[in-house]
């Protein structure tokens, strides 16, 4: 199976090399593409030197646009499986074989976390968010989910094509699940360990988290009622 690992990165020079080395160690057969989303540091040079392919966006387009570029790259190059992974090292490369092994039976395999980082405040806020969105998605899709905000996922050919067509622009994780369910995809979760982030900080501040909750809830509800039909020349 031709496998691609997509790593969206924005100013991740502190961790990107470790992440690539870990992947090479635990999933040596997989190709790696780093989507360098307008970084102003040495992310691009370091990723290239570490042996990854690098897609450098001319300016910052945000996580959704960057991730979708990775899926388009996977589609264009005929990959069977595309795995998205964070550049900050919180997704453990040891878990990659687990995701890849389930990817032949399911359209999307989500790595669900057991272990949470222990910083009290972010952990409480985050836990509330994780439970809320999992309940919401479970309600809307009538399928049980425990970790809809996880960005550690393996996508099969069908999902690669669907995500190349449409991918939510900001805070995409939750809505992108509902979109796939509406398209009749089979999704499963597997338990994966997650580490506390090695460098950098979460992009979600308290004020942003309020916006995040409202925006994602709206997006999920809209997505649940939508027939996705991309029009010519733009995304649906």
């Amino acid at each position: 199976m031709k496998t691609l690992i997509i790593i969206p990165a924005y100013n991740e020079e502190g961790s990107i090399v470790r992440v690539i080395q870990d992947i090479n160690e635990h999933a040596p057969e997989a190709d790696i593409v780093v989507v360098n989303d307008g970084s102003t540091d040495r992310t691009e040079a370091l990723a290239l030197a570490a042996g990854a392919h690098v897609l450098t966006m001319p300016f910052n387009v945000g996580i959704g646009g960057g991730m979708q570029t990775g899926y388009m790259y996977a589609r264009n190059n005929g990959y069977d499986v595309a795995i998205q992974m964070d550049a900050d090292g919180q997704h453990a490369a040891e878990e990659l074989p687990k995701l890849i092994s389930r990817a032949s039976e399911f359209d999307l395999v989500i790595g669900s976390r057991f272990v949470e980082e222990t910083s009290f405040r972010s952990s409480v806020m985050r836990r509330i968010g994780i439970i809320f969105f999992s309940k919401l998605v479970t309600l809307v899709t009538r399928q049980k989910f425990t970790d809809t905000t996880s960005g550690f996922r393996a996508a099969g050919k069908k999902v690669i094509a669907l995500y190349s067509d449409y991918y939510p622009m900001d805070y995409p994780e939750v809505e992108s699940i509902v979109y796939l369910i509406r398209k009749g995809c089979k999704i499963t979760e597997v338990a994966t360990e997650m580490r506390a982030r090695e460098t950098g900080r979460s992009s979600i501040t308290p004020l942003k988290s309020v916006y995040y909750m409202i925006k994602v809830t709206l997006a999920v509800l809209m997505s649940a009622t939508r027939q996705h039909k991309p029009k010519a020349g733009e995304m649906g």
Partner: protein
Amino acid sequence: MTIYFLSVILSFLFLVIVFELVRLQKLKEQYSLLWILFGVILFIISLNVKFIEALASWLGVKYAPAMLFLFGLLFCFAFILHLTMVVTKLSNQVLRLTQELTIRKEKESRHGQND
């Protein structure tokens, strides 16, 4: 010169400016349609004030010019909504272009290395 005469001139001028902008290709036809509609309505109202007064008394509005503000405001909302739809479409298209360009650039640089 009364305010009625002035508003006839102003709304006529407004229509002329809109048409001129379209003619000079400073304004796309599709976006000019709403402005032309607005200009024509403005022109009709200023030609015949009785119209707006009749409408006001029919709707139970005591101060007839308030009708103008109401419709002016509604028109602005409609046009701004239309504009944000245009912005959404444009940003989707710009993103697509950026993505296609990025993928193409990477392909080119890889081929460059192989030669």
